[in-house]
């Protein structure tokens, strides 16, 4: 790899609370060093509509809860070399998956959110992407290369993962991570 060339990195936000992205920002001054090495080509922090091609590292926050996210995840996988599950929702489903135990959970949550609380003309929006029956962790849909567990994962852990990957090493979570 040409050392002068910046590494193309992306971050994606699926069904999560954005806490993992906040934790990413909590890397604070280390972000300056990071910015020298990477170019952020797609992220909630950058206003880019299309997921670009030839991305080296992509961190994904959140579970896969609807059809649109499932498609996006597949696109990301096909355009990314190293895919990292960022945080518990991406790794386990976490809070987004709390609904999974309910019978017909996709319908049940929509009714709870849009029908039950409204007392006038309640309706479930039809123009939004269809919910999957289960909110699922990323690795149940595509191949995931690395996992950063935590709710949210600490900035140190995110920084450790990125530093190792950028240096071309294989990070291990043993002794670093906290499940859940």
């Amino acid at each position, binding site marked *: 790899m040409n050392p002068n060339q910046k590494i193309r990195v992306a971050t994606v936000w699926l069904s999560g609370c954005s806490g993992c992205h906040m934790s990413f920002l909590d890397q604070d001054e280390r972000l300056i060093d990071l910015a020298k090495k990477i170019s952020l080509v797609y992220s909630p922090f950058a206003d880019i509509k299309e997921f670009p091609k030839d991305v080296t590292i992509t961190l994904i926050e959140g579970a896969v809860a609807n059809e649109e996210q499932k498609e996006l995840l597949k696109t990301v996988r096909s355009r990314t070399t190293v895919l990292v599950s960022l945080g518990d929702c991406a790794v386990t489903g976490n*809070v987004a998956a709390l609904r999974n135990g309910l019978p017909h959970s996709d319908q049940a949550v929509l009714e709870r959110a849009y029908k039950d609380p409204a007392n006038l003309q309640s309706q479930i929006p039809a123009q939004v992407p269809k919910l999957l029956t289960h909110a699922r962790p990323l*690795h149940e849909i595509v191949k995931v290369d690395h996992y950063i567990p935590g*709710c949210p994962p600490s900035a140190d852990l995110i920084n450790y993962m990125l530093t190792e990957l950028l240096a071309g090493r294989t990070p291990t979570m043993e*002794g670093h991570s906290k499940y*859940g």
Partner: protein
Amino acid sequence: MNQHTMKLKIDGIEVECVEGSTILTAAKAIGINIPTLCYLDGLTPYGGCRLCLVEVSGTSKLFPACATPVASGMEVTTQSPKLYEYRKMVLQTLLAERTHICAVCIANDHCELQAIANQHGVDHVFYERNWSSNKIDSTHNFLVIDPNRCILCTRCVRVCDELEGVHTLDLKFRGKNTDVIMDQDEPWVKACSCTSCRKCAKVCPVGAIYIEGENIEYTKDPDVAAFIVERRKRLK
């Protein structure tokens, strides 16, 4: 009466122990730590969680250290890449079986399952998770059981039977349908044999049995079983 002593090797170290000891206690005596979940000092071994599996030379079968008596000349391996992988697998099946969502669990950071998973570098669950939704029983005055977090280690069942002596708790059904029940599968408040002693909550390794409104850090006291056994010796 003279008790027979036996000599065996654990991880290459020679150990001498009395007949009837288990591999686990023999290993502990020489400072070798074998991970356990269902085992608890003071209670009868159950051998259910399979975390303490060890290798014994001469056979390809793995043995649960907590429930396997020592034998003369035995050569035991407690740590190997194979065992590490098996233990990791066991941990992942436990995490996949029910709805273990640490972020919303009362025992987050005070959970034996989570702690051992961390020691083994479990950063995700490989198996597709079995999403279940079991009814929480909060009918008791202050004790709550959430079967969604239960790993069926039966520590609560054994402490209730063996130490409190009332056997309120037991299991029903088999396999993945197994559940902890009170008396004849009644709501906890109607289980009249329950003395509300709290030992079940103290020994629960996860967040399945807890005390309403109490910080789980103060509830948990897994050493209580060994403590009671020790103190009862004075009665004899």
